[in-house]
């Protein structure tokens, strides 16, 4: 001891020793602060704090318990070091309302409670004694009790002097804010980590560029997109810091910079473009969304967020679907045309048979009549095929006709066909049916279609005898032509699809005709409808206006 060194008036130590102890405490605090600045890990800070207290004040052990008011997660609640018995029990006791209310009542920043304080219950006192705790120090932040430190007794014969206690409380008060801020850092890191996890779970590629247009952040999908286009695996570190025009270079992203240059206003605005990128394995189509975000309300600088949605597969599927649709339409058209041609062929074949029969019976006048009708059918067929190259298929050539005569002519040519053998044909034609303006060929086509459908229905199964009934009726403003059969009838599902494309119940696939029929009748200003009942039969009614 230096002879000149004086004794401290408060302790049995010299002034220089006291000063050196304070110096150590100051250095300890400095180290804790530096540790917090370098790595604000709460657990590590709490453990180091307790070790510092042990070494600085020579106590056997220490326990730190954070209260629920500190919003501390459970894994950060309790710490202990050294010779403290029943550590878990003590930590649990320090969480008790009794202890916490005691400190809150104290209303002081650093109150110390000894064993014999009557405000503590006997039970709690005994528990602390048994564990080795001799001091309880509150950790107060603002008006909140954040935690409690429990200290064991001093080692050897030492005692904590008043200057030690003062130094201890100063140390605790200085470190509490560091502990609180490390908890905050932990929470913010957790939030940041959760946000990162959310970003990385998003299917779209997200790129964030700073105000200098340098890449400052990407999510995993963005890395995958770039890697896929370049044919290699990319790591985040390899592209961060690159400029916008380097990330979206002209080679892989042709004209992207030009298209995306539209968004140059400051403030939040969104631009959406569909752009193509050239990858090593082919072109990819993206929906590109560009958003400008202000960094802060006072600043005019902004960050740019670019989102890529790879719609290549979707576009390919749409393209394929369109092609299939075209094929289907083409197929449907072909089938519809074939169907109509079959009707004409059927009439012509029927006419040829009648002509043959007339010649065999030397009824030459009749034969000439039949040949004339055959010629008209052939010409109708010619007009029909010619209309295939004309956009307006329904190129009606109307003339004044009698519907009853048309029905008779069609029946004559049709009924000789094999499918009508064995079918009883009944006609109920209205007398004094006026002539109306109609395209004879087209209405013949419709009637032929209905007759063929009826014959198919009765031949596929139905009632005996097989029967088709053709009827004409005159009303005040229109004429009805009804074709009904006693065939198998149609289900409700089939009825609901009548006059719609690609609807057929026939194995021969001739359901297309009703669509053409409806077009023809509609073109004549009329209507066509169908009724049916399973097991009973079907009936189709054409209504044509009088006076056209």
């Amino acid at each position, binding site marked *: 001891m230096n002879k000149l060194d004086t004794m401290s008036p408060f302790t049995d130590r010299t002034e220089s020793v006291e000063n050196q102890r304070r110096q150590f*405490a100051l250095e300890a605090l400095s180290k804790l602060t530096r540790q917090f600045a370098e790595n604000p890990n709460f657990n590590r800070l709490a453990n180091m704090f307790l070790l510092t207290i042990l070494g600085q004040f020579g106590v056997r052990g220490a326990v730190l318990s954070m209260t629920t008011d500190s919003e501390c997660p459970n894994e950060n609640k309790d710490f202990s070091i050294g010779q403290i018995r029943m550590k878990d029990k003590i930590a649990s006791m320090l969480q008790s309302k009794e202890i916490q209310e005691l400190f809150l009542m104290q209303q002081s920043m650093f109150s110390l409670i000894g064993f014999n304080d009557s405000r503590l219950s006997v039970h709690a006192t005994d528990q602390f004694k048994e564990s080795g705790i001799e001091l309880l120090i509150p950790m107060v932040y603002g008006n909140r009790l954040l935690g409690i430190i429990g200290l064991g007794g001093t080692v050897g014969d030492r005692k904590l002097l008043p200057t030690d206690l003062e130094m201890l409380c100063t140390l605790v008060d200085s470190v509490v804010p560091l502990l609180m801020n490390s908890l905050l850092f932990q929470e913010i890191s957790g939030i940041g980590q959760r946000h990162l996890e959310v970003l990385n779970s998003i299917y779209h590629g997200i790129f964030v560029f700073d105000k200098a247009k340098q890449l400052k952040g990407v999510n995993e999908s963005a890395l995958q997109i770039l890697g896929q286009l370049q044919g290699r695996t990319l790591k985040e570190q390899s592209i961060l810091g690159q400029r916008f025009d380097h990330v979206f270079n002209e080679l892989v992203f042709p004209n992207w910079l030009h298209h995306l240059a539209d968004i140059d206003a400051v403030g939040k605005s969104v631009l959406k473009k569909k752009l193509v990128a050239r990858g090593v394995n082919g072109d990819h189509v993206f929906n590109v969304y560009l958003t400008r975000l202000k960094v802060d309300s006072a600043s005019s600088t902004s960050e740019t967020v670019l989102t890529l949605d790879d719609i290549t597969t979707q576009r390919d599927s749409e393209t394929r679907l369109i092609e299939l649709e075209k094929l289907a339409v083409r197929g449907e058209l072909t089938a519809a045309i074939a169907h109509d041609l079959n009707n004409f062929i059927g009439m012509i074949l029927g006419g040829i048979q009648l002509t043959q029969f007339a010649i065999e019976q030397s009824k030459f006048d009749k034969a000439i009549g039949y040949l004339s009708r055959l010629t008209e059918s052939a010409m109708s067929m010619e007009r029909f095929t010619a209309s295939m190259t004309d956009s307006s298929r329904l190129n009606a050539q109307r003339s004044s006709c009698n519907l009853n005569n048309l029905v008779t002519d069609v029946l004559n040519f049709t009924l000789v066909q094999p499918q009508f053998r064995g079918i009883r044909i009944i006609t109920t034609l209205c007398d004094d049916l006026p002539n109306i303006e109609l395209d004879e060929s087209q209405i013949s086509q419709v009637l032929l279609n209905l007759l063929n459908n009826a014959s198919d229905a009765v031949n596929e199964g139905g009632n005996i005898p097989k029967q088709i009934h053709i009827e004409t009726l005159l009303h005040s403003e229109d004429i009805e032509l009804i074709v009904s059969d006693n065939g198998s009838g149609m289900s409700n599902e089939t009825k609901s699809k009548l006059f719609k494309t690609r609807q057929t119940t026939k194995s021969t696939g001739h359901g297309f005709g009703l669509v053409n029929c409806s077009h023809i009748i509609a073109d004549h200003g009329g209507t066509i409808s169908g009724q049916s009942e399973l097991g009973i039969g079907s009936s189709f009614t054409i209504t044509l206006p009088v006076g056209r």
Partner: protein
Amino acid sequence: MKTLLLSQHALTDDTWIIRASQRLDNNNAEEMVNALQQAHANGFHTVRINCAQLTFLSSAGVGSLLAYVDEFREKGGDLVLYSVSESIIHVLTVLDLADYFTIETGSVQAEAHDTMNAERI
């Protein structure tokens, strides 16, 4: 900069040797605690800490030693600091702990114990 403990190894079935580096402070105090905890858990009753290279000891470093002294003494052993320099003794004196720790200052006696192959950490 984190400074590690230099080495540690078993001297006998009962005694464990730890060789401290230049500094025992906030950077490696936890490591010392873990080393002492491990030695205690492995059944060693005495730990001898070679302080020949130790020139700096912080409060947290002292705390890391203090945390386990009683543990070893209760088992009939001890935590011994040997080849301790004057500066380290001064720190312990200021903190009123020089009489509490078992300190050996003689280097010959200390080195005689530390002859086994060191197990580098």
